[in-house]
C-alpha cells in the first residue's frame, strides 16, 4: 500500500541516522582530554579490557573501556529509550504533549535523589529509582481502572503527583543549604557518572521499549489514530496498562542513572513524524535512532563545555531543529 515516496523517504532518514549515529559514537570514543588516535582506539576495542598496570597503554585502555565506552553507551541507550518511551506515551495517552515524564516518573526520581542528597543517604540511584516507582504507583492508583479507558484521567493524576513532588523538591532544596547545587545539577542530568552498571540497566531497558514498540506497531497505529481499537481487535485497556507500566519503569531506570534529561522524549517523536509520517513501523525505529543520536551529540557538547547539564543542551540543539522543521512544514 505504500508509495515509492513513502518507502524512499523513511529509508533515507534511516540511513542518515545510522551513519550519523555511527559517526557520533565513534567520535565520542576519540574525543576527550586524553588524546587517543583512531587506530589505537580500534586496537583497544578489539583486544578487550586487559589489566591496568600504570603504563600509557593501560591508561588509554582504562579511558576507553571504563570511561568513554560506558558513557557513550549509556547516553545512546538513554536517548533511544526516552524517545521510544515518548512514542509510546503519545500514542497510548492520545496526547501530543505526552512524554516519558507525564506520569510523574521524573518528579519521583528527582524527589528520591534530592532526598538522598539532602540527607546524605548512600545509593543515590536506588533512591531515585524508588522515588520514580513510588510516584508511578500513586499515579496508577489515583487514575484507577477507569483511567485505562480514559487517558486524560491518568495524565491529570500524573500532573497532580508531579506538582506535589516538585513542591517537595523545592522544599528540600531550600532546606538543604550547601547541597542545593548538587540537587540542581543532578536534576538537570549528566552522563559523567556512567559506568558498566548504568549500561547494564539502561541498554536492556531501551531495547525492551524499542522492541515492544516495534512489535506492537499495528496496535499502536490503531490506538494513536483515534480508531475504535477494541472493535479492531486491540484490547486497548490491557495494551495501555502493560506498555505504560513497562515504559514508565524503563524511564525510571534512565532518570535514576542520568537525571531528568528533558526534551528528547517529547520532541524526537514529533520530529520523526514530520520527516517520516505517523506509522509506528517507521516511527519507533527512527525515533529510537534519533533519540540516541540527539543524546550522544548533546553529551559530546556537554563534555566539551565543562560538563554543562545535558538537558540544557538537548533543548538547545533539538529546539531550533524542531522549529525549523515546523516552519518549513507550515
Amino acid at each position, binding site marked *: *500500500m505504500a508509495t515509492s515516496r513513502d518507502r524512499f523517504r523513511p529509508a533515507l532518514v534511516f540511513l542518515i541516522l545510522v551513519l550519523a549515529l555511527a559517526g557520533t559514537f565513534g567520535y565520542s570514543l576519540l574525543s576527550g582530554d586524553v588524546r587517543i588516535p583512531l587506530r589505537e582506539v580500534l586496537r583497544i576495542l578489539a583486544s578487550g579490557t586487559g589489566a591496568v598496570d600504570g603504563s600509557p597503554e593501560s591508561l588509554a585502555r582504562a579511558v576507553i573501556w571504563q570511561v568513554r565506552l560506558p558513557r557513550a553507551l549509556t547516553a545512546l541507550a538513554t536517548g533511544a529509550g526516552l524517545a521510544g518511551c515518548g512514542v509510546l506515551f503519545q500514542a497510548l495517552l*492520545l496526547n501530543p504533549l505526552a512524554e516519558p515524564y507525564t506520569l510523574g516518573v521524573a518528579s519521583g526520581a528527582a524527589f528520591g535523589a534530592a532526598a538522598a542528597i539532602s540527607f546524605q543517604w548512600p545509593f543515590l540511584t536506588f533512591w531515585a529509582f524508588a522515588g520514580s516507582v513510588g510516584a508511578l504507583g500513586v499515579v496508577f492508583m489515583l487514575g484507577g481502572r477507569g483511567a485505562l479507558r480514559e487517558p486524560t484521567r491518568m495524565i491529570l493524576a500524573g500532573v497532580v503527583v508531579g506538582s506535589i513532588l516538585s513542591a517537595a523538591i523545592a522544599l528540600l532544596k531550600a532546606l538543604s543549604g550547601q547541597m542545593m547545587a548538587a540537587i540542581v545539577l543532578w536534576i538537570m542530568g549528566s552522563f559523567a557518572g556512567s559506568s558498566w552498571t548504568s549500561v547494564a540497566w539502561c541498554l536492556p531497558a531501551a531495547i525492551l521499549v524499542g522492541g515492544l514498540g516495534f512489535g506492537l*506497531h499495528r496496535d499502536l497505529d490503531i490506538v494513536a*489514530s483515534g480508531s475504535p481499537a*477494541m*472493535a*479492531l481487535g486491540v484490547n486497548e485497556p490491557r495494551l495501555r496498562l502493560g506498555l505504560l507500566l513497562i515504559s514508565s519503569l524503563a524511564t525510571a531506570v534512565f532518570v535514576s542513572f542520568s537525571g531528568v534529561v528533558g526534551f528528547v522524549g517529547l520532541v524526537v517523536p514529533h520530529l520523526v*513524524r514530520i520527516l517520516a509520517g505517523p*506509522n509506528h513501523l517507521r516511527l519507533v525505529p527512527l525515533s529510537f535512532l534519533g533519540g540516541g543520536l540527539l543524546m550522544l551529540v548533546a553529551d559530546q557538547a556537554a563534555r566539551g563545555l565543562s560538563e554543562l547539564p545535558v538537558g540544557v543542551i538537548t533543548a538547545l540543539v533539538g529546539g531550533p531543529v524542531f522549529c525549523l522543521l515546523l516552519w518549513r512544514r507550515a
Partner: protein
Amino acid sequence: MLSASRVFAGYGGLPVLREISLEIRPGEVLALLGPNGSGKSTLLSALCGVVRATEGEVRLGGRLISGMDRRSVSRQVAYVPQQFAFTQGFRVEEIVLMGRSCWLGPFERPGETDRRKVEEALAAMELERVREKPVTELSGGEAQRACLARALAQDTRFCLFDEPTASLDPRHALLVMERLAELAREGKGVAAALHDVNLAFRYASRLAFLKEGRLLGVFAPREVNEAVLETVFEVRWCFAPGPGLSRLAFPV
C-alpha cells in the same frame, strides 16, 4: 448468529440497556431505531463486546463474547461507532488497512488478499481520489466513509454500524445503504442504528425499536404504522405513497 439475551449494560454503574433480547441473523439488515438516548449505540457496543453486559449474555456463533479475545471477535464482527475523531495524520488507505490488522500477525506484511480487500473497500466508498490524503484533512463525510471502508476491509460475518449515514450527503447515504444491503445479500448479518425511518423502510429486513433502554418490538417494514412510530418518537406521523410500492413516513 449474533445474539443478545436479557442484556443489561451501561456506563459507570448506570444502566442504559434494560433486559434486551435481540438477534442479528446472517443475510439481513436489521435497523435499530429510537429517539436520542434510547440505547441504540450502547446496544451495538454491547453486541460487539466493546461495552460489557452487566447482566444477561451476548453470544457470537454460540460462544459467549465476553470469553473471547478481541482479535477473534474482530475477525467476525466489524463495528463503526457514531463518533470518529482522527488524532493523527494517517493516510486514508492506512486507516482502511487497519481493518485488516486483526487478520495479520505482528510482523506479517499485508498480503494479496489484504490489498485486494482494501482496494475493494476504497472503491465501494468512493475514496480512491483521497486515498493518499491524511485523514485529519478529510471532510466529515469523507472521514465517515473512511471508517466504513475500514469496516468493509475487515471482511466479517457481522457488521454493526452506528448512524452510518449521519455525515453523508444524499447520494453517499444511498451508496452506503446500497452497500449494506449488498453485504446482507452476500450472507452477512448487518445491524445499523438509523434516524432516517425511510432509509430503514427501504433497506432493512427488520426494524427494532428502542426507547429508554428497552426494546419495544421488532417489526417487518410493512408492519410499522403511525401508532408504532408515534409511541417510539412521541410525535405524530403520517404515511404517503413513495416510488413503486414503497411508502414514506413523515413526522408532522
